[in-house]
């Protein structure tokens, strides 16, 4: 993976730049000691690391403005950062860039139950947004598995999803407004507590723009009344095909569960060994969760089980208590950890039309044999968002490259069958060079032109999302 060559002129001005930033920011906001900036050399895509020029952790939108004004005037690249849990290298710095982290801006600014929204500073973690409203019986719907750590800032930039998005949608469907600092330090407010855009839907464009259009400092998020209850059922099958058919039949029957999770055998075995959730040893497993009152849940699970029974399941385990529910979810929630115990892994998140599931899983199995690398599949089946976890050994020379090539082949397959490269993790640096498989040069040019409008000097996270060749003239102008 290539990154642009750092600008030597910027590197040589490091001391002056740091001094300039320190002059306008409060104490402790600027971090420039190489030992202290170590923590910011990478995000959760740990295969790639690079020390930044320096790190700033502003405490207010005004301080973000001050940073942007200086960096804009000096032509210094800025890499926005939330909690650094990106799996795509979205928060990976270059040597000549300033990391702008919003982690210290994590206040709740307003909670409004009557109007069903919460306004927060974007450094706040995803889970603590729900934490701030759950006592009143509300929750914030998007729930990425990383929700304990990841920040709303990163969720907005990546348009993150979660297990429950089949019913509630992803970040963009739950975001009502933002306060954002543009590359030149100008502040804009877009959206608010009302539901629809008054002109062009700029909010929709900003969500998922990977830190390239502005620094989002505040967000207005829709909160929803918590359901009375929720309960899962676990169903094991002897083939991926049959499990996939079962998912399709459930959806066709008119039931819309809040979550349908899928695990294949390698993943089931790994999580069993790791978490001991008591999963059946079978080819494929579904965890389906429904919500409502006790009677509503019983009714829906009854219908789901009836459909499942027509598909020859090897096991059906309906949760009867909160403890049993937790146990059913335990294996799914520890899947990443379990795979990580076996070896290093790379997690992809290509999305496919649900009908292509059996075909794609079969092809992944064949490729796994070709590459000689194991892969486990765990994913959101209701919406076709795959999560193949490819195992490799980072200490074995050539293994990472082999894994990346395997990963690229899987993603190309996803696009080929009518899907996309990434369903929720974002492009970052990881999938940057594959963009040409999904988009034509004209499609990409149109996207670059959008960045031209928001950030004409291309200082915001410039080395991400698009193939470097495609952005070179813009970055170096």
């Amino acid at each position: 993976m290539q990154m642009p060559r750092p600008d030597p002129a910027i590197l040589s001005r490091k001391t002056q730049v740091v001094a300039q930033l320190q002059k306008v920011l409060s104490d402790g906001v600027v971090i420039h000691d190489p030992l202290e900036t170590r923590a910011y050399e990478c995000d959760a895509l740990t295969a790639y690391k690079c020390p930044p020029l320096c790190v700033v952790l502003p405490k207010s939108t005004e301080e973000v403005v001050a940073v942007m004004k200086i960096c804009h005037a000096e032509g210094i690249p800025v890499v926005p950062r939330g909690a650094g849990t990106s799996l795509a290298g979205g928060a990976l710095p270059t040597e000549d860039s300033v990391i702008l982290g919003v982690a210290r801006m994590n206040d709740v600014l307003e909670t409004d139950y009557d109007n069903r929204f919460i306004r927060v500073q974007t450094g706040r973690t995803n889970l603590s947004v729900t934490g701030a409203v759950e006592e009143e019986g509300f929750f914030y719907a998007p729930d990425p598995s990383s929700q304990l750590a990841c920040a709303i800032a990163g969720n907005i930039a990546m348009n993150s999803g979660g297990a429950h998005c089949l019913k509630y949608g992803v970040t963009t469907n739950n975001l009502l407004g933002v306060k954002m600092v543009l590359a030149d330090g100008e502040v804009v407010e877009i959206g608010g507590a009302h539901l629809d855009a008054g002109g062009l839907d700029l909010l929709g464009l900003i969500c998922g723009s990977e830190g390239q259009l502005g620094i989002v400092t505040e967000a207005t998020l829709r909160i929803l009344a918590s359901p009375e209850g929720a309960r899962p059922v676990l169903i094991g099958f002897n083939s991926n095909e049959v499990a996939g058919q079962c998912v399709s039949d459930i959806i066709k029957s008119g039931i819309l569960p809040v979550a349908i999770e899928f695990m294949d055998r390698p993943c089931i075995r790994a999580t069993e060994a790791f978490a001991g959730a008591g999963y059946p040893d079978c080819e494929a497993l579904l965890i389906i969760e429904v919500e409502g009152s006790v009677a509503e849940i019983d009714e829906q699970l009854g219908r789901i089980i009836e459909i499942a029974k027509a598909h020859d399941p090897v096991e059906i385990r309906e949760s009867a208590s909160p403890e049993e529910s937790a146990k059913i979810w335990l294996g799914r929630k520890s899947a990443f950890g379990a795979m990580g115990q076996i070896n290093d892994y790379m997690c992809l998140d290509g999305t496919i039309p649900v009908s292509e599931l059996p075909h794609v899983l079969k092809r992944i199995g064949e490729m796994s044999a070709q590459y000689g690398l194991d892969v486990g599949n765990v994913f959101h089946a209701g919406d076709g968002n795959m999560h193949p976890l490819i195992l490799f050994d980072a200490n074995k020379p050539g293994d990472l490259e082999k894994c990346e090539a395997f990963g690229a082949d899987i993603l190309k397959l996803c696009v080929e069958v009518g899907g996309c490269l990434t369903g929720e993790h974002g492009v970052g640096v990881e999938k940057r060079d594959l963009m040409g498989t999904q988009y034509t040069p004209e499609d990409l040019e149109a996207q670059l032109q959008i960045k031209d409008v928001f950030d004409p000097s291309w200082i915001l996270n410039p080395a991400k999302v698009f193939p470097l060749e495609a952005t070179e003239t813009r970055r170096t102008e």
Partner: protein
Amino acid sequence: MAELVADATGPMRIQGGGTRQIGAPVDGEVLSVAGLSGVTLYEPGALTLVAKAGTPVEEIEALLAENDQMLGFEPMDHRRLLGTSGTPTIGGVIAGNVSGPRRLSSVGACRDSLLGVRFVDGAGRILKNGGRVMKNVTGYDLVKLMAGSRGTLGVLTEVSLKVLPRPEAVATLSFEGLDPGLAVPLMSKALGSPYDVTGAYFGPYHYQAPRHLHLRLEGSSASVKYRADALAGLLSGFGAARIERDPDASQQLWRDIRDMTHLAEMPFVTRSSIKPGAAPAFVESISQVWAATHYLDWGGGLIWTAASEEDLCKNAKNDRGDSSEDELTRGAKALIAAMHEAMSFEDGHTTLIKADERVRREMPSFQPRHSVVASLELGLRQKFDPRGILNPGLMGA
């Protein structure tokens, strides 16, 4: 289509079915997409449908109904309200981000059901974004940007949509003659409950006229029955709710709310998207000076405001503008100007939906945006329509 646009020498008025031209009137040659018609893919088991932009909405809805599915955002049919004829197309729905009463639930707006687009921009480029899968964060989200852009960034040629199962049952809880001041609090309480309310309407916002508040529940029969009773209990402090359990009656009621058919005779209609809690104060402040009637949908998040000819004549008297104009025009111009002025940026915005041609030419239909936002919008238009030929001026800036 790409050639037509690329070879265009002047402005073009993009037209689907020609049933909902909202915004400043556009002078230019008509570019019709009605010929680009047909559903190209429909997978009920994946809840996805792909159609050419000129496909009639009716055709899509009929196909979905065969499989007990629907467009979750229930697009309104503008024909009765606007007095237009023609066949509404899916492209026109998406270009206007047209969403019905279910907007307030987790189903969301039209833009939330849109998964992918193909379009021809003003330079004649054929572009695509998104796809036909429900989750896609590959590159920037031009799908959302195109929804509601009303043909000013490009001509949609194909769209893919997420569809939803049609609820097995529907019921409506109604409260009659409620004090208008209690309407939004009641709806907020209902929407803050776990009972998954998918419609919340009150109107007219008037202290004398007969007024109705309706709440909709949808789902399986047993579930709807349970929630209707539970919700009535929760709201008993506001009075006794009448529960309509006949699905046909409920469906008709919500279709009328969706299409605002009872405003069909009104010469002047606006929609305001607003923080629900701010709706009463906004309505009261307008009502103090201006003659008009207001109706709340989306739990107060959407205000429909309508003025009759008589109202407009009254409003003309409040206006100090050009007195050579006829009263109806002056009254309408003054009212929309007052509404735009009364609405603060933080609370929302007002869009002119229906008025005579002169008013729509001379007044901004869309609430003017903050200057930084306006310049971003302008910047985007210049990139996608460098010659300014696509519905020029329709959305203002």
